[in-house]
């Protein structure tokens, strides 16, 4: 917040529009950039299922807690999968999250 913003706030005036512009732009671009990588929700669901199938071959996953999503930062969109493991196949119980990152442009 700048001095100008503070004075505007105290006087009950609207904040400078450049801030609004920046925020709106960042929001709309986050959407646009994910669209560009052409990953629809259907595709994401399919990918999620396949990733889980592979991982489930080696470890037991807590299926209720699984989260797979796309996160966009700057020009990079990252696939972030959070797969809580209940136990390994050998039987040891571990409470550890595996995080997988797969960068796509």
């Amino acid at each position, binding site marked *: *917040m700048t*001095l*100008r913003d503070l004075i505007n706030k105290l006087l009950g005036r609207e904040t400078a529009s*450049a801030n609004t512009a920046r925020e709106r732009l960042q929001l*709309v*671009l986050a959407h*646009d950039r994910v669209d560009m990588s052409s990953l629809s929700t259907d595709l994401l669901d399919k990918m999620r299922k396949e990733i889980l199938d592979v991982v489930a071959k080696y470890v037991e996953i807590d299926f209720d807690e699984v989260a797979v999503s796309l996160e966009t930062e700057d*020009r990079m969109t990252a696939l972030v999968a959070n797969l809580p493991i209940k136990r390994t196949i050998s039987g040891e119980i571990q409470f550890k999250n595996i995080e997988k990152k797969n960068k796509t442009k």
Partner: protein
Amino acid sequence: MKSNRTILICSGKGGVGKTTLTANLGIALANSGSSTAVLDADFGLRNLDLLLGLENRIIYTAQDVLDNNCRLDQALVRHKQEPNLALLPAGDPRMLDWMKPDDMKKISNLLSEKFEYVLIDCPAGVEDGFKNALAASREAIVVTNPELSAVRDADRVVGILNTCDIDPIQLVVNRVRPTMMANQEMLSIEDVTSILSLPLLGIVLEDQQVIISTNRGEPLTLSSKKSPASKCYLNVSQRLRGEDVPVIDPNKAKKSLKDKFIKLMQTKIF
């Protein structure tokens, strides 16, 4: 001849100043001694000839070159005051129906054999016209205004350029109003460069002289009188040539009491 550069001038959105930048950069590069060709790739709505004041001297177009109706040098229109600059005019809009990226590549290859700089004035949009022009280019300058819709469309274009082996991709922020930026009523240069994450080639100040020069068909860089925008265009051309000069600072000329006050108001307090 040293390595020739084929540079796409694009923006996504229309009306942000691609053609004006192409004309002024073309004149400035030619004036500094480099043979330069400007290619109007906007077949639908061609205007580059008009901005350069060459509209009455067009005999053949890019279409005639492709059809082998004429040789390349017959179609090129040399600028009278700046003989280092030549325009290859766009053909008629019906060309859009059959034109392929390879056709555009052929034209730009012919040009880059003869000219040090080939500037391609790209049509607005991200459709076929843009893709044709893109196929013919090795570098790109993305032009945008410090304004939501222009930046958004530029982002689209950058996304496509990034997948097409175009390097470098540089940014020109056009129609900059320093006072509005200082008052935080306009996206700042830093906002635009960081959002698009592109290196800044230069900025161009908002300047009424641009309209006057368009009326006359004489690009600003042609005149010996230097208006604010004209200085900016020269700065962009120097930086494009690789000269080590800083980007023009929009706030540099302003040192009045009012401007100091404006600066104080921008102080970050938390």
